[in-house]
Structures are given as structure tokens and as C-alpha cells.
């Protein structure tokens, strides 16, 4: 009785102290030294590839404890070659003083072909984060050599993004995951359309061409590469039940949907039902999007699925699915229920009407004000550069923040989030992480034709926080797939998991972030490692990044 009373009082204090801090994001691109401009090689005919590039990755490539930034970039059309430095992918090293240095050439990551997305993780468990870059005509696996340079190991590793006949598939999103829990990371690649310069279609009136609909092209199957160790992978797409499902994949996000200890895979498809690949014990996948309730909207129709995050947004311990879509389609939110299926929560969450006129790309569910509720961020812009000429929609759009209110409800707070959040631009991918180590999650957004946005979180009065950097020993070293249950001193329970596959064709920091509100400590942190090991930490003080090694 006494402990319940104390808990009740603590929760009441939590609620009383929970004054919403106005979330503020400030663009410090100019001072940062990041000069990256996403160049899609735009042409008068507006080839479909021009609209859908722009992945970003935030990861610490040199292990100095600071997040660095990688941007993918386009190429000249129709040659699809990076024949000018303006098309290079770019890596910026965080110098720790708010500035970044372009280390693209010294690191050897300027890339080849028309690039799309990025996935970052330590695939060989050597302690250095590696990088996979997707693209139209070239996918590249860069092995981090630990000396500030990367080596292209694509061919040796066998992850070139080709089908069984050797044809290169147009890849957009990618995710690192340990689907078989064998302790090394496998690779899932989401493929989009069967496009080439030779079969390019032209849509819209001359002088105001539009990006053609994805339905004008055949879709593609996705790829799953199993990590065999020794730097080699095997394409198990067919054997694992992935290749049989032809989609129009744009993004991929991973989480253990049903708590069975095996990571499941969500693929957002463009104008086609979404896929949920249920992991059957690490041996194969069953596509259960329809049965699970994430294939279509509540109206039984597909959306133009773009970016996705597969994360628990209502703090019930089950990862939910949120994705961005095109204007005229609300951004769908699917709530994972205790009954073993998802239910559409787009309108009940408050997101339905709020997102109806937005076109979103990058997205992520992160607690931006550290109040214990995750926000939803979306990087916005319409697909077609000339859409304004048709009167329906606007090409350049402002990004958006939907504040988590608890209970899976959200409110659009973009208007109060600062000048940087009001700028209408051609935003694309985005990645999340704490660039300056102040405990507040920052966002980097790529923008077609303009400098990238380096959005520092300057929210005043943000709550306490805790960052967890997990290191697997039996599990994969990045601990991707590990789930974390945190109980704050007030008794409030939160959930999250380790993943870098977040949003649109992008990779966010692997660090697990919790906002704690007024709680100055976590009374208990329970980690379930992909190996099956369970670890409990007690009475952990807030406002620190805690490194945890798998026991």
C-alpha cells in the first residue's frame, strides 16, 4: 500500500512537472562547415530517379565519440556517373566544436553511380562502423578500415544489389539486422522500380514535366543477404521467402513486432501494399502485411509509402509502424496491439487531418523534448518539382514535428519550433542523433538544390535523458535488435530498441535515447540482447551516455 502511494505521488509529480517545453530546432548549417547540396542532376523530362534520392547517415566513423555525417548524392542523367564533384557522396567529420570537415576524398567514399540511400553498422564486428550505399546502378559496401579510410568490398562481399541473373536492381532503402541471431549483421535491401535510361517514361506537359507514377513501371523484389562471416554474404532472398514478393520498396525498418526474439522487417512500398516480413525463427520470412494489418490504410487502399520508423510510440512495449506518404494521403500510423495485430491509428492519433496536405520523406520517432513521449518528425516536399504548375500541391514544403502527447496521440507543433522549421524546401532524407552531446536529439536533413539542414535541438527546459550505447559480445557488436525497457524513478516505463534503419533511405545513430522528464534516474533498465541474454541495470543516474557491454 505504502509503495503504491509513493508510486502514485511520484507519477502525480511527474504529471505536474510535465510542462511541455517548446521544441526548438535551429539550423546551424552555415557555421557547421557542411556545404553539401543534394544534386539530382535534374533534367527537363524529370526522370523518376530525380525525385527519390537523398539518404543521410549519422554515425561515428572514427570512434572519437562524436557523430559524423554522410550524404548520398545523385549523378548526371542519363549517364548515371558522378563525373563532377557536385555529384559526390560526402562524408563530414565532426570536429567537436560545432564544425565539420569534409573528409570525403581521404576516406574514399565519394561513390559511384546514382546513389540513393545509406545504411550504417559494424557488419564485421571489428568495432568500426561500416557503410552500405544503395543506388540506381551501383550499390557499394564500404568496410571501415579503422584508419579514417573505407575500402569498397562490394564484390568480394557479394552485396552488389543484383538479382539472380546479375541484373542490378534499383535499391533505395537498406537495413542492417541480425535476422538469424547468429551474432553478425545481415543486410536487407529494399528495391524500387525497374527503371533504366532506356525505358524512361515522360509524364506531364512539356515544360512542366512531372515525375511519372511508380505504377508506370514494374516493381522489384527485395534482397536479403546473410552474413557468412569472413566478409562474405550469401543472397538468401529466395530461400528466405523475400524474393517472391515484388514491391516498390522505398524504405525498410526493423523491429521485433511480436516479441519472439527475432527481428521482423517492414517495407514501405510506393502505391502498393506495404510488406511486413515476419521472421519465422531466423530461418525464413512470411509476408504478413495483410494479416498483420499494415498493408493498406483503414480504407483498404495503399499509399505512396516513403519513409518509415518501426518503433514503439505509445510506450506499451510493442513497436508500432509510422510512415510518410504523399499529399492527399494522411501519414499512416499502425498501432501494434496485444492481440497480435496492428490497428490503424492514423486518425485516432491526431495525425490524419494534420498530415493530409504534407508529402513526407525522412521520418523518425524520437523524444525531442525529453519529456518521455516520442515525437514524430517528417522531412517534407512533394515528389514532382513542377507540381505547383498544376495547382494541386506545393513542391517545397516545411518539415513537421508532431509532439507526442502520450497514449499514442500527437499534435502538430511545427509552427512553434523555430524559423528553420518554417522553411519550405525540397527536403528528402533525414537522420537523427545527438551531434553536440547535450542530450537532445538533433536532425540532419538533405535538401535537393540547397544546402543540407543541420538542425540542432535547442529546446529550452527539456527534461532529463539517458543514452545507451550497447555493445554485443555474443550478439552482433552493434546490438541491433536489442530491446530496452526503462523504468524511471517516477515509475514511468518506456521502451525502445537498437536500430539504425530509420526514415527514408537513411541511417540514424545506433544509440538508444530516452527522455526522462523530471526523473533524475532510472530505477531499472532491462536489456534483452539478440542472443537471448537478459541484463538488468539498477539505479542509473540520468543525463549521461551509458556504455553497456553484453554479459
Amino acid at each position, binding site marked *: 500500500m505504502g509503495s503504491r502511494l509513493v508510486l502514485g505521488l511520484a507519477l502525480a509529480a511527474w504529471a505536474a512537472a510535465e510542462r511541455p517545453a517548446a521544441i526548438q530546432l535551429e539550423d546551424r548549417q552555415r557555421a557547421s562547415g557542411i556545404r553539401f547540396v543534394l544534386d539530382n542532376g535534374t533534367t527537363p523530362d524529370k526522370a523518376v530517379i530525380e525525385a527519390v534520392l537523398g539518404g543521410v547517415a549519422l554515425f561515428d566513423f572514427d570512434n572519437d565519440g562524436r557523430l559524423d555525417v554522410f550524404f548520398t548524392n545523385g549523378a548526371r542523367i542519363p549517364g548515371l556517373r558522378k563525373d563532377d564533384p557536385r555529384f559526390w557522396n560526402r562524408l563530414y567529420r565532426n570536429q567537436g566544436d560545432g564544425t565539420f570537415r569534409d573528409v570525403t576524398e581521404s576516406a574514399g567514399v565519394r561513390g559511384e553511380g546514382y546513389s540513393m540511400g545509406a545504411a550504417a553498422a559494424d557488419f564485421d564486428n571489428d568495432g568500426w562502423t561500416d557503410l552500405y550505399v544503395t543506388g540506381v546502378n551501383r550499390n557499394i559496401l564500404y568496410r571501415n578500415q579503422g584508419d579514417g579510410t573505407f575500402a569498397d568490398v562490394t564484390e568480394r562481399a557479394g552485396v552488389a544489389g543484383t538479382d539472380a541473373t546479375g541484373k542490378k536492381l534499383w535499391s533505395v532503402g537498406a537495413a542492417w539486422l541480425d535476422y538469424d541471431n547468429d551474432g553478425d549483421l545481415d543486410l536487407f535491401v529494399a528495391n524500387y522500380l525497374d527503371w533504366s535510361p532506356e525505358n524512361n517514361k515522360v509524364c506531364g506537359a512539356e515544360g512542366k514535366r512531372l515525375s511519372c507514377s511508380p505504377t508506370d513501371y514494374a516493381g522489384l523484389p527485395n534482397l536479403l543477404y546473410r552474413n557468412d562471416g569472413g566478409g562474405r554474404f550469401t543472397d538468401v532472398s529466395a530461400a528466405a521467402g523475400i524474393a517472391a514478393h515484388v514491391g516498390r520498396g522505398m524504405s525498410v525498418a526493423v523491429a521485433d513486432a511480436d516479441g519472439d526474439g527475432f527481428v521482423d522487417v517492414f517495407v514501405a512500398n510506393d502505391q502498393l501494399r506495404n510488406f511486413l516480413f515476419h521472421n519465422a525463427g531466423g530461418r525464413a520470412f512470411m509476408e504478413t502485411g*495483410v*494479416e498483420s494489418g499494415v498493408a493498406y490504410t483503414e480504407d483498404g*487502399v495503399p499509399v505512396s509509402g516513403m519513409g518509415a520508423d518501426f518503433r514503439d510510440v505509445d510506450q506499451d512495449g510493442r513497436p508500432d509502424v509510422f510512415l510518410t506518404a504523399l499529399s*492527399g494521403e494522411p501519414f499512416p500510423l499502425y498501432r501494434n496491439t496485444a492481440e497480435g495485430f496492428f490497428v490503424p491509428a492514423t486518425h485516432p492519433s491526431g495525425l490524419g*487531418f494534420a498530415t493530409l496536405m504534407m508529402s513526407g520523406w525522412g521520418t523518425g520517432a524520437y523524444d525531442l523534448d525529453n519529456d518521455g513521449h516520442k515525437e514524430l518528425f517528417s522531412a517534407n516536399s512533394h515528389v514532382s518539382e513542377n507540381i505547383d504548375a498544376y495547382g494541386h500541391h506545393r513542391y517545397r514544403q516545411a518539415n513537421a514535428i508532431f509532439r507526442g502527447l502520450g497514449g499514442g496521440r500527437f499534435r502538430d507543433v511545427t509552427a512553434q519550433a523555430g524559423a528553420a522549421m518554417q522553411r519550405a524546401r525540397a527536403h528528402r532524407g533525414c537522420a537523427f542523433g545527438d551531434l553536440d552531446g547535450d542530450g537532445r536529439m538533433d536532425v540532419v536533413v538533405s535538401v535537393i538544390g540547397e544546402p543540407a539542414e543541420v538542425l540542432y535541438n535547442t529546446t529550452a527546459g527539456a527534461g532529463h535523458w539517458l543514452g545507451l550505447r550497447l555493445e554485443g559480445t555474443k550478439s552482433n557488436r552493434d546490438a541491433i535488435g536489442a530491446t530496452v525497457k526503462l523504468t524511471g524513478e517516477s515509475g514511468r516505463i518506456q521502451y525502445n530498441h537498437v536500430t539504425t534503419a530509420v526514415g527514408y533511405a537513411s541511417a540514424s545513430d545506433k544509440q538508444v535515447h530516452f527522455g526522462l522528464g523530471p526523473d533524475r534516474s532510472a530505477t531499472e533498465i532491462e536489456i534483452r540482447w539478440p542472443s537471448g541474454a537478459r541484463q538488468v541495470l539498477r539505479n542509473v543516474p540520468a543525463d549521461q551516455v551509458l556504455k553497456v557491454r553484453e554479459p
Partner: protein
Amino acid sequence: MSGALALAAVLVAANPCAGARDLKAAAEAVDKGELARADYLTSLALALAPDCPDALVLQGRVLSLKGRPREAREALEKAVRLAPANAEARYQLGIWLYRALLHAEAVRQFEKVVALRPRDARAHDYLALNLEALGEAEGAERAYRKALAANAGPSPDPFFDYYYGRFLLKQTRLEESRAHLDRAVALHPDERTVHYERGKLNLARKDYPAARRDAERALSLKDPAGPVADVQVYYLLATVYARLGEADLARKYAELSRTTPIPDRR
């Protein structure tokens, strides 16, 4: 200019439709879908009175029916330009804009229509639909309520209840939604759309047997050109059967919702 011509010019200026004949017959033909007759009569009227707004409105409707949307819009916009207070011209232009998904422009037209014809239930309803499509929920709610109020009478349009019930379902106001969707079904029992929507409502209410009845009824009412495609009904059925534990049926309709092509409504 002769005296007779001058007089004619004055009369036309005062009433640009003075020379137009058979406008009423043309309107009836459009309403009945008698396209050839409507086209002939409208052309005749416009030949005699090229700036007659009412004739231009009819021309716009005829051109829409003939699949010439750009010319239809030009005719309707000309009618509005010539007669800004012509509610019917704005109403028809608003419908054109709504169908073209130009919701913001449609709202501007319907706001003027309801100012000119405050008892026009359909105009309020179109205003609500367009506001809803823009995500303006509060304005849509007000307009729906006005549409329903104006719709009261001996032969109400059942779709007003359908649209408002659907809107309330999105707002998660389930019991209010139920009242309107029940009424829509009662008024229009052979319409797939209303059964489908009530099936969704009953699914949200976790009344799975009722959801099953509605979904099965929707399935039985074929409507190839209607707003609810077969694949949508299959997905609803797959979900409802799964909730009811009808594994075989759930599997059957899940497979159908995977394999049935989605109509291209561009």
C-alpha cells in the same frame, strides 16, 4: 447603328441571355444525360447569346460529360467571370474543381455558393468534403452540420449522412458516426459504399459480427465503377474474419486482397 440594333445591344447588355432559346430544355437534357440533345440545344443558345452565363454553365456540364475537362473548365470560369453572383455557375465550377482534386479552389467557389444560396444542402456538403480533403476538420464539421440541417425534408439525400458519418469515424466519434451511418444504410440499403463504411465503423467498435454482416453485404453489392473497389472489401473481410477467428475465410480474403489489382483512378 440603326435604332433597332442599338435597342438590341441595350437589351443584350441588360440580359445577356435575352437571345438564348430553349435553355430550360437544354438543362433538362443535361440532367437526363441526353448528351446529343443537350449539346445541340446548348450550342444553339450560345450561338444566339455567346455571353449568356446560364448557357455557358450548361456547356461546361456538357463538355465534362463528353470528357473534355479543360474546355469545360474554361466555359464554367467564363460564366463565373461574366456573372460573379450566379450561384449555379460557381456551384458547377466547384464540382469541376472538386473532381479535379483542386480542393482549395473548390472551397472558394462553394463558400460563395452557400453565401448566395444558404439553403443549398448540396453546396454545404461539397464545401464540407473539400474542407475535409484539405485537412480542415473544424470547418468541415460546421459545413456538414449545415448540410444536414438544410437536407431535412421529405426526401433527404442519404449520402449526406454517409459523408458525415465517415467524417465522424475519422474523428473516432464512433457512436455519433454510427447514428449517421445507420441512417445512410436505412436510406440507401443497396449501396455498397454505405455498408462498407459501416463495416469499418463496426470493426473500430469491435462489434465483429456486425462488421461481418456489413462487409459481406458490401461484397454482394457489386459496384465496379463505384468509390469502393473490390480489393477494399476483401481487405475489410480479411480483417473481420481474422478477428472472428474464421481462419480459412480470413486466409481466402487476405490472398484476394494481395492478388486483386488496385484500380488505377488517375
